[in-house]
């Protein structure tokens, strides 16, 4: 694929200093990195050609990255999401980039993962030769994060701790693998949210999007994770607004969660160098996290400002105003039903 610098900027993080020992790796659109890398590799392997058809189930930034790449590189794109997962503004942004967006019903408000996958397989059958990137299981997703590791070591050299949110597991597993091969003592802290199966909660509705999952992705390598934090939606929203109101950083709510945990760790280990991954900018969250009226409608808003997480001895869901953590100590994946 041709190297187009106006898209490269989306996938190249800026390192911003948030404290003497805390850096944010701030992306405009982090998912551009795995999306571009996966499509490049698919082209190399002959799975995708110019004019070819891509189909994926995604409701967020991965869909956006695919749509941006598709318009520039002349692919046809079908995105499958659910009525509860995608707002009309976002849908129309994707459609303006030429994507076909299919929203399946979601009466139970659980994301209707089964319904989305069934629809995806239907589209694949109707369009033979279509390419499905499978961001949850495609090893090129974590493999692409050499670019993040590259920027981190160029700017900081050795780091002691990497903090990041987990959805597909690609960014945190991938970046950790590249960095740990150089700095074996580096610690990795994963951020999840309540009712996500990634670290052992039963699946349920999640208010904070962009992290967590209701199925277990192969790209999450639990054996790399030292500690897991579950950040409730309200704590993430509060921290995101605080970043804007104190530092003028206009970022998405998963970045708020990452900085909440990153600051806490950096405060406790002042001699260590900590990097927190910040996956996207704030624009998409203008009608929600950056809207006071919307926040006021959320049950429990405003939450109490928490300086410390509550330590758990076993994985269990807490409230949206809570922040909990436990030592994961690189154990293997929790038992969950894989779909």
């Amino acid at each position, binding site marked *: 694929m041709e190297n187009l610098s106006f898209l490269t900027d989306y996938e190249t993080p800026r390192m911003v200093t948030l404290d003497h020992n805390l850096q944010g790796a701030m992306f405009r659109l982090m998912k551009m990195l795995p999306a571009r890398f996966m499509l490049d590799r698919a082209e190399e392997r002959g799975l995708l050609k110019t004019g070819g058809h891509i189909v994926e189930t995604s409701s967020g930034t991965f869909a956006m990255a695919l749509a941006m790449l598709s318009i520039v590189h002349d692919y046809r794109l079908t995105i499958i999401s659910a009525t509860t997962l995608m707002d009309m503004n976002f849908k129309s942004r994707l459609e303006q980039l030429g994507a076909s967006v299919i929203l399946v019903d979601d009466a139970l408000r659980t994301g209707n993962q089964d319904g989305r996958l069934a629809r995806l397989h239907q589209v694949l059958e109707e369009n033979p030769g279509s390419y499905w990137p499978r961001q949850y299981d495609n090893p090129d997703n974590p493999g692409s994060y050499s670019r993040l*590791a590259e*920027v981190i070591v160029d*700017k900081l050299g050795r780091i002691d701790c990497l903090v990041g949110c987990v959805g597909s597991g690609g960014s945190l597993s991938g970046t950790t693998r590249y960095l740990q091969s150089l700095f074996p003592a580096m610690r990795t802290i994963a951020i999840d949210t309540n009712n996500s199966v990634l670290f052992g909660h039963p699946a349920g509705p999640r208010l904070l999007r962009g992290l967590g999952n209701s199925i277990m992705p192969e790209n999450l390598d639990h054996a790399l994770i030292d500690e897991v934090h579950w950040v409730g939606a309200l704590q993430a929203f509060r921290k995101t607004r605080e970043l804007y109101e104190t530092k003028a950083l206009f970022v998405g709510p998963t970045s708020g969660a990452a900085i909440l945990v990153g600051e806490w760790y950096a405060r406790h280990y002042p001699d260590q160098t900590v990097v927190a991954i910040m996956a996207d900018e704030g624009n998409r969250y203008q009608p929600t996290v950056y809207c006071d009226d919307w926040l006021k409608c959320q049950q429990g808003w405003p939450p109490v400002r928490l300086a410390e997480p509550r330590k758990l001895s076993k994985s269990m869901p807490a409230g949206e105003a809570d922040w909990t953590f436990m030592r994961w100590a690189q154990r293997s994946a929790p038992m969950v039903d894989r779909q």
Partner: protein
Amino acid sequence: MGGCRKLRMCCALSAGHPMSLINSFPFDSLSPSEQGITRSLRVGTGRAIAHHGELLQGVFPRKDGRLHRALLTLPFPRAESVVTFWPEDKAGIHTRPIGRNKAAKAAMLAFQEFGFSQIGGCLTIESSIPIGCGYGSSTADVVAAIRAVASATGAQLHRSLICRLAVEAEIASDAIVFGEQAVLFAHREGRVLEYFSGDYPPLDIIGFASRDDAPVDTLAFTPARYGSSEIESFRVLRALARRAIRNSDAGLLGQVASASARINQNHLPKKHFTAVLKLAEEVDACGVHVAHSGNLMGILIDATKESSSAQLKFATAAARNLGFTDIVRFSVNGDGVSSWR
């Protein structure tokens, strides 16, 4: 400035004989060819150092995204080749010792490049670099020969030209043209992918080889075919090398070398690599390095540490006990006179 100007005018005014024009050093005058005088050659000398494996070798993208094989060499300044060109009346270039054909070819290419034909002379090659041990003796001879020709002709010689001529004379070139300046060098093309800003951090090195690893013929060697995850790892190693050199950080550069050596185990494995890693850990070295197309290995020690000479002594004895051969100590970017000199 005023004085200089005055002097120049004096020279121009007093020029009675054309020879005085040629000999009046910094001042523009008629060039020999403009005066119809054939350009003469003088005795010229060039030098080039050896290398001892690489700190990093792999494939790396250029700005256009295309991948190129390239390396960050480990200079071995203790050994060097000194080549002198002696002009003779008879056409043709011969070498002493006889039969150094690559050096002769490189010299001839350089003469052609500078616009000289029908050249006659002798290249004397005085090299302290052992031949056939993977220290790049042949490349050093070629580079020193090109430099000798430049000196003999009074030609300007940019490093990129040396690289191009060396590749022409020898198929592949080496970054030793750059001496102790760190560059990511595409050795098969003879060009630089990246100039790292800064110098190599001061390193003390103990280098050796094992009888259990066969020597490698560099030019006949089939280059490694790297996998996708290795190619991505090289990106990270390149960035870390850049950081290490910018900050003169021996520890980080050692990490780069060890990681590159570990990847190389999938392609040209060193039989006693685990023992070398263990030894590096025992002496608290900053890393290990290997020759990616040869059988050399070594242990890198931060020369700024007070303990470095003790570490070096211990490592040397341990390498001997492990049965390694060709044991040699050297420094890169060190200050002062090394204890083994």
